[in-house]
Each structure stands twice: as structure tokens, then as C-alpha cells.
């Protein structure tokens, strides 16, 4: 009996390790979106400073596109940015941007002027009008929108070559072909 006592710590540890294993398989930032397979909530955002066309939910119909939420204040967006430029350069899919929660109207355009603009259309959303409807929890977040303006996928955090290849691109390709 007392020998068994010495096995208790091992047993507890193995159970814990099992939980860790399950926990590791999940992305800690993955928050299920109730908007998947729902049409994009209606919004009509004004243009950012220096551009004359904004972004409305109606613009997202007609072809498969990416809707990317960014901000000049957002560090992870800086990380993601070069890869978005590559997607644009390769002409894989149009990317539309929501410039979210800028305190200063010129900050977003200045950021894009400095780093390059991967976006086809950009809407200015300083007070989260569209972001709340989209259930955005942080930047960057990216939605895959199909031809009918329906959200098919939501990606939280920066797009990297790795998650692009494994998650986003296969979905986009399938939608573009179908």
C-alpha cells in the first residue's frame, strides 16, 4: 500500500501532461467566430485621408477576397505586412483593408506610405463601427470572403507563410475554383 503512495505523483503528472498535450493542439488565440458562413455585416466606411474611395460591405461581392483588419499602432501588423505585400505582388487574391482605431486620421496612410500598400480598397474605422459588427477582437485579423459576400474563414493574428500555406490558401483556392 505505502509503495503505491509513491506512484501518486507520477499518476497526477501524467494526467497533467495529457491535458497539456490536448492544450497544445489548440491555438490559444483561436476564438470561434459565429460569423462563419454568414454574409458580411453591412457597413460603409469612409476613405482614409488622401484616398477618395472607402470600403463598404457591398464592395466585397463579385470575387473571392481577403478582408484584413490593421492599424498603424499594431505591432503584429508590421510583422504581417511584408507577406501581404507578397500576396499582392503575386496577384493571388485582392486584399481589402479596414484601418482600425486610428487616433489620428493621417497615421494609417502615413504607415502605408512608409511600408507600401497591399490593399485594393481601404475603409477608415476609427470608432470600430465595422469592427464591432465583424466581432474583431484584435489586430490583425483576416476574413476570407467568397463571391457572394459570405464570410468563409476567420484568421486571428498575423498571416505567416506557414499558416498561409496550410490554412488560408487552400480555402481561397477552393473558393476561386468552385
Amino acid at each position, binding site marked *: 500500500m505505502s509503495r503505491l503512495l509513491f506512484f501518486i*505523483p*507520477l499518476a497526477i503528472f501524467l494526467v497533467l501532461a495529457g491535458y*497539456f498535450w490536448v492544450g497544445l493542439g489548440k491555438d490559444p488565440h483561436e476564438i470561434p467566430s459565429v460569423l462563419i458562413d454568414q454574409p458580411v455585416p453591412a457597413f460603409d466606411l469612409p476613405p482614409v485621408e488622401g484616398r477618395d474611395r472607402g470600403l463598404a460591405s457591398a464592395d466585397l461581392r463579385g470575387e473571392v477576397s481577403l478582408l484584413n483588419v490593421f492599424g498603424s499602432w499594431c505591432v503584429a501588423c508590421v510583422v504581417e505586412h511584408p507577406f501581404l505585400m507578397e500576396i499582392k505582388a503575386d496577384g493571388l487574391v485582392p486584399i481589402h483593408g479596414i484601418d482600425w482605431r486610428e487616433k489620428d486620421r493621417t497615421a494609417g496612410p502615413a504607415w502605408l506610405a512608409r511600408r507600401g500598400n497591399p490593399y485594393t480598397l481601404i475603409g477608415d474605422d476609427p470608432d470600430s463601427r465595422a469592427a464591432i459588427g465583424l466581432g474583431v477582437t484584435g489586430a490583425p485579423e483576416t476574413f476570407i470572403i467568397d463571391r457572394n459576400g459570405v464570410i468563409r474563414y476567420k484568421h486571428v493574428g498575423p498571416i505567416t507563410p506557414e499558416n498561409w500555406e496550410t490554412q488560408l490558401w487552400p480555402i481561397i483556392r477552393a473558393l476561386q475554383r468552385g
Partner: protein
Amino acid sequence: MIVELGHFALILALAVALVQGIVPMVGAHRRDPALMEVARTAALAQFMLIALSFGSLMYAHATSDFSVANVVANSHSSKPMLYKLAGTWGNHEGSMLLWVLILTIFGAAVAAFGVNLPQALRARVLAVQSWIAIAFYLFIILTSNPFARMIPAPLDGAGLNPLLQDPGLAFHPPFLYLGYVGFSMAFSFAIAALIEGRVDAAWARWVRPWTLAAWMFLTVGITLGSWWAYYELGWGGWWFWDPVENASLMPWLAGTALLHSASVVEKRDALKGWTIFLAIVTFGLSLLGTFLVRSGVLTSVHAFAVDPARGVFILGLLVVIIGGSLALFAWRGPSLRGGGLFQPVSREGALLLNNLLLATAAASVLLGTLYPLMLEAVCGDKVSVGPPFFNSVFIPLMAPLVAAMAVGPLLAWKRADLAAALSRLWLAALCTLAAILTVWLVHGLRDLVGIVGMAMAAWLFTGTLSELAARARLFTVPLGESARRLANLPRATWGMSLAHAGLAVAIAGMTGAGVWKQESVQLMTPGQTLSFASYEITLDAVRPVAGPNYEATRAAFTLGRDGRKLATMAPEKRFYPVEGRQTTEAAIRTTVSGDVYLVIGDRQGDGGYVTRFYFNPLVAWIWAGAALMVAGGLLSLSDRRHRVGAPARKAARGAAGVTPVGTAGARS
């Protein structure tokens, strides 16, 4: 070139570690002195190789070599030199390299200074150390190479998170790691003892100083982290029960328990299995601390590496190291029979109570930290466990612990007279009562936590003094004799008293800052004066200023009381353009009774600024208490009983007529 040398040295260290992990173990088994000696040479070689490796990474950071990916991701040419150097370990890869650097420093220390250790024990300890090193080298080389080049090299780097560009945080990780890794010594000794099948007083005498040193470093590391959070995050708080903080608190609690149980093994030959178990658990929790921060298993405000591939590797590493050692413990542990029997009311009994409470505290912090993860694994819900849980669990566990802490040192080993011990604490009881009444009169009954906290602090502080007085036989023998007795007390005893008193001071600080904190948030225009706490605060002006790698908005406040000017205070809001981030630099005026803590916020449309004022009572006591605890540890570490070959002197001191309460058999 230098960077490649560093990479090469790291791989060479892995090869040396493989030799050190196998040959001495075989040597110890075969009792072959030549094979066992390999451990020492190899440990020194590993240290030199890793020092070279770490040095080369540091060189790359210092010279802003942007062909190294790690430098690009974490540095920028405009960063001050201190943070370029600190940037070496301010990122995942570099911090792992720091981890193994510290591991090899400890290994080399055993090799260089462990001359009096039995050769077989030393060989086994160093071999076990090397197994840990192998696991970490593989982890670094396979998943987190800090020496990867980036070709073509960009013109400049991405910068270091500005929150981390701070002297407090520059030195927080090294101390934390010195603590975490320091517990690997206790772990290696425990595993070596399980393999040898022998745990005795000599073993415990060897383990204690290493554990004590690790405990001190961890105390410094946690305090620095908490201090940093206090002044840098700008929330006016110093502890948030954040998973990363909890990850460092758990090994501290377990390590504190280990420190006390090892003394029972040393003095009384009891609690052997438990001590071995604690050594494994303490190091296991240290690894978990590394794991929690590094793997992103838990979401936390400052987990700065989210990468499942690394997570799987660390989990494998944890399963092998902790699971393996717990399996070894299950197999060999039952054969460790203790010799010393004791009554429930005795020094051993008090230390066992201390151990049970500390272990329960560590377990409840673990539960609170991991519960969200488990719940998610089972039902897919995302929850977070916050301060209310921890406060309501932690305080009820700490209260009896502190109550017993004042009594324990007054109890004799084996069997003690509780009534006699308590009768020496009448003055402490009186002071505690006075503290309760004072708090009650000033603040009323609604702050029950405040009353309990202050009572705990007063009881522990005066109880610790009473114990020193009892040892000195104060007022029963002439004063000169008392002074002589105090002067002749072993340093370890002074160290314990100092550390216990330090905890009392820290508890007073935590209670004050936690319960009687005042804060206010308001809009202010320059020239406006507001009264807050017992002060008048005037916002004089707000100006833009430029720093070396940031732009800041700096406010000038005048702090006054009763029309008298006390100080000018200048909080800042900084913007780091390279990283695109803002930080808050609070202005803090520290006094014994509390800190005035001012924060300047955003400008509003009409020319006003959001300002936040905090009055945090007794915060300085937390840092002072932690400093006292560390000083106690240092003093105890300098005790010659902890040094090599010292036990021989014990008899000599006993003959001089000084019989400290702490030495075995002196009073029974």
C-alpha cells in the same frame, strides 16, 4: 564568423554533454575513479563552450549584426547599449541560451568547488545535470537556433518591445533563471541520491546551500519582475496573478518548502522521501515556468513566444525529465527510510506543517493557473481565473503558515513544549493585538483582510524578535551576556530570523498596498489643482520631449500638502516609432508610508489630459521585505556550516558553551 563559432561551440557542448551524461554514470556504477573524473573536466568544458556561444550572440547584439535573424527581430541600431546587451536574452532563443549558460555555470561550480563531495555522488550529480543540458541543447539547436543568419541582411532591426527596455526588466530574466536553474542542482542531487539509494545528513548539507542560493536568486527575480510591473505597466499594481507570475511563484513556494524540509533531513534524518519529492517537484515547476512562458499554452499578457512546434518539444522534454524522475521516485523512493522519529509538537512537526501549507499553496496556484486549460480541453470553454480566486485561496493558507512561523523556531527538535513556546510569545501576542486594534480604529471592521494581514505581519515580526530575545536570554541574564550570546549565534540562525522578519515586512506592505490603495482618474487642464489622498496635485504643463529612441509627452506635476510644495513629478507617455508602441512611465514618489503614483494619459479634444493618481500605501515595504529575505539568505549562505568540510567544527563550537536552540540535541 564569430556567430558561426558560437553555433559550433553550442553543438560541441552537446557532444561534451553526451559524454558527461554517460561516462561518469558508468564510472560511478563500476567504481572507476578515472571514468568518474571525466565529469569534472567535461563540466568545465561545457561551461567554457557555452560561455563562448553566449558571448558570440551577445557580440552580435552589441555590434548590431543584422545578418543574424535573432538580432534583426529583437534589436535596432538606435537602441541604447544596455538594452542591446540585455536584448541578448530578451527573446526566446537568447533566453534559452542564457538558461543553459546558467546550467553550465552551476555544473562548473560543482566541478570546481565540490572537492569534498564523495566522488561517486559528484559524478552522478554532474551526469544528471548533463542530461538536463542535453535536452536543452537539442531544444535550442533543433527548434530555436539563435545563430540563424538572415540573407540578405536588412538595414535595421525590428526593435525590442519597449516595455522590456527597462533596467528592472533587463536583469529580471537572468535572476529568474538563476533561480529556476539553481533548483536543477537540488534535482540532480535528488536523482543521484535515488540512483545511489542513499539520503543522509551529508547529502542534505550539500543540497541546502544550492537550494538556498537558487531560492535567493528566484526571490530577487520575482521581486524585480513585480517592481517592473509596478512602475512600468502604469496600472499602479504590483502583482496580477498573471500565469507568468504564477509560473515563477510556484517554484518559489515549493523551493521554500524544500529549503525547510532539507534542514529536517540534515538535523534529524527524517522526511527523506518527502524532501526528494520536493526537489523533483521544485525543479519540475521551474521547467513548467519556462514551458508556460515559452509555449503559449496559456494566454497571458506577456507570453512572447507562441509556437506549437516548440511547445510539443518542451512537453516531450517535461515528460521525460519530470515523468522519468517521478517514475524513478516511485521505484526507489520507498527504500528511503528515515531514522528520526518525532512528536507532532516539535520543530520537525512545525516544519512539516510549513511544508504542507506551502505545498498546498503551490498546488492551488498550479490549479488556478491550469484550470482554464483543463476546462478548455474538456468542454472547450475559454475562461480565465483571476485575483479573486487566488486571494481567497492564498490568504487562508498563509495565515496559519505565518502563525506557525513565529512559534516553530521556539520549538525543540523531536518533542517540544508548546505551552512554554507560546509563553515566550506573550509580547508578540500583545503587539498583534495592538496592531488589530489600531487598524480597527483607523479603518473600521470592513477591511477584514487588512486586519488579518497587519495582524500576521505584527505577529511574525515581533515573534521573530522574541525568538532572538529568547536565544539571548534577554533580561534573565546580564545585558552584556545577552549581547555575547547574540553575537555568537550561528549566521544561519540570524539568516533565518532576518528572512522571517523580511517576510513580515513584506506582508505589511502587501496588505497596505492591496487594501488601502486609493485611485482616481480625471480630466485635467494645465494649471488645474486637485486634492487627492492627503495631497494637492497641480498639473503645471505638458510638453513633448525626445529620448534616444522614443518621443514622449512629459507632464510636470507639483505635489503639495497644506500649501507646502513637496516635489515636482514628471510622468511620461512614450512612443517608440521603430516598434510602433506606446509605454507609460509613471512618476512615483516613494515614502515610508506610501507611494504617490502619477500617470499622464491621452490628450482630449478640448486641451485637457486624462490623468490617473494612485496612492499605494506601504509599497516600499514589499521591496524592503524582499531585500531583507535575500539578505537573510546571503547571511545564512555565509555560515561556515554550509561550507565544505565544516561539520568538523561543530564540536568545537559546542564546547565553547554556546548551545543555540537550532542545533540538534542541544536542548532535549
